[in-house]
């Protein structure tokens, strides 16, 4: 297997940009990624492209990837659109890695994009109402928040987790985003106020959820043995894992574990030759705050059922032993669905290269960084482990 390195990353700011187009956003992400390749890269040298999107609103239903390639100035590349709900670009990353690892491709890009502000709120609910099994979950009248809420309720019931533990993750991430100029929500959130937020889908409140976001991101990868031609600071993709699970949570043996996360993490750790203990920091999929708690357990950062205590200990704060969602996470950095997975990679790569956009949020002495990107309520999960080259 050919080793794979990241040589450049770029993303737009995340936010609501109703006046911008899909092409415009993707172009900006591409330019930022190309500019991040220190010694330069001709966009025409990109051979393969994997573009994640859910394509909210369906403006461009077919051939989405070739259209984005035009916007990126990479016409001709072997390009396809990857969909796995909110994990679309986590899988785009995984498949870009495989293309290079196979030896057939020298340079590939993984990208992601979503434009959610084009649609009126009502239509966004039509599109986003269900990310699980349409027939059963939608007819039950639940939305996406309700699904995670039911998982949260079980976690509280089975392990004594309290609402405050869930909200702690949201508050940590909102406050982390204050130092991230790319983040969508940059307003401090106090714990006491967050605990009093109105109900979204009980036990979750509006404070515990991500919003509606536009944004795009791109990761440029190449054979590790070519990386020094492009940058003195490549980052190695040492682990990649992917897994699926029952789409509907009612079919799963447990509602407090994402088996997809466990399986994907196991693959990624095994490929990297490490264990969870070796992970220094992580960007995990906190679409709802409970999801971050589940990630702690399923990634092996703490024991099953202990996520409440773990976040309460401060271990995952910016100054903790293993910072999680130092970027602000989906809750505060933003969750432009298709962009989230490669956006997480951007963050981890920047941290490993010492290129965080503000000194305040640059992590020190980090070796291994992890990303966890979840589709739907756990139907698909991609996990990656990255490491700076000494």
């Amino acid at each position, binding site marked *: 297997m050919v080793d794979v390195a990241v040589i450049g990353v770029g993303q737009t700011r995340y936010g609501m940009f109703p006046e911008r187009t899909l092409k415009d956003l993707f172009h900006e992400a591409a330019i930022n990624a190309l500019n991040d390749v220190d010694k330069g890269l001709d966009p025409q040298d990109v051979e393969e492209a994997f573009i994640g999107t859910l394509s909210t609103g*369906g403006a461009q239903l077919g051939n989405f990837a070739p259209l984005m390639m035009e916007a990126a100035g990479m016409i001709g590349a072997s390009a396809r659109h990857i969909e796995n709900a909110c994990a679309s670009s986590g899988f785009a990353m995984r498949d870009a890695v495989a293309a290079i690892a196979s030896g057939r491709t020298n340079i590939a890009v993984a990208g992601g994009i979503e434009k959610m502000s084009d649609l009126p709120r*009502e*239509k966004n*609910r*039509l*599109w986003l*109402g*269900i990310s699980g*099994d*349409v*027939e*059963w*979950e*939608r*007819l*039950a*009248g*639940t*939305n996406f*928040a*309700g699904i995670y*809420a*039911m*998982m949260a*309720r*079980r976690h509280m*019931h089975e392990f004594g987790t309290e609402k405050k533990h869930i909200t702690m993750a949201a508050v940590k991430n909102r406050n982390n985003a204050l130092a991230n100029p790319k983040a969508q929500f940059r307003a401090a959130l106090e714990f006491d106020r967050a605990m009093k937020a*109105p*109900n*979204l*889908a*009980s*036990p*979750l409140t509006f404070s515990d959820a991500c919003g509606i976001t536009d944004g795009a991101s791109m990761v440029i990868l190449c054979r590790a043995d070519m990386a020094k031609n492009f940058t003195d600071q490549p980052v190695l993709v040492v682990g990649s894992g992917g897994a699926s699970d029952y789409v*509907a*949570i*009612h*079919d799963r043996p447990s*509602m407090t574990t994402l088996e997809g996360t466990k399986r994907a993490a196991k693959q990624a750790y095994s490929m990297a030759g490490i264990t969870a203990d070796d992970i220094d920091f992580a960007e995990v999929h906190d679409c709802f705050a409970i999801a971050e708690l589940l990630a702690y357990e399923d990634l092996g950062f703490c024991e099953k059922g202990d996520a409440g205590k773990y976040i309460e200990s401060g271990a995952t704060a910016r100054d903790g032993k293993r910072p999680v969602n130092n970027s602000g996470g989906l809750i505060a950095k933003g969750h432009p669905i298709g962009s989230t997975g490669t956006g997480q990679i951007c963050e981890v790569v920047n941290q490993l290269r010492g290129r965080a956009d503000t000194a305040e949020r640059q992590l020190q002495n980090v070796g291994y960084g992890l990303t966890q990107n979840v589709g739907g309520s756990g139907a698909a999960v991609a996990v990656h482990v990255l490491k700076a080259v000494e």
Partner: protein
Amino acid sequence: MTSYVSLPMYGANIDERMRLIAGKCKSCGQLAYPQRPVCTKCGGDQFDDTPLSGNGTLYTYSVVAGNGAPSEFDDEQTMTGDVLCGVVELKEGPRVMVRLADVDPEQLHIGMKLRAVIRRLYDQEGFLRYGTKFEPVGS
């Protein structure tokens, strides 16, 4: 019309949903509800139709706040505000996500006894859609 339950999709499994017809694996006896093409226990793909009793207990639930449910429930949410949903664990074993009916949100608790009733869901494309909801036993 984006992501929604189309009339063909609504109609295709209406019997299974309204009458709670599970599939019983001919090879290993495992019950599948909702039905699925392949048995998750043994991989078999032949099933006998088996009606379920409609009795069960509440496994988990959520009170989805106003305007949160899919937009076809808008009319209802305008009238009632919240939508109550949960997962019921049926007496025979399978779990399924359902609408909860005729229950005060304050009254909801994991483990409470429920039973199936057929109720109106919503109007769409000129058709009134009915479905199975679950209500507390004794209500």
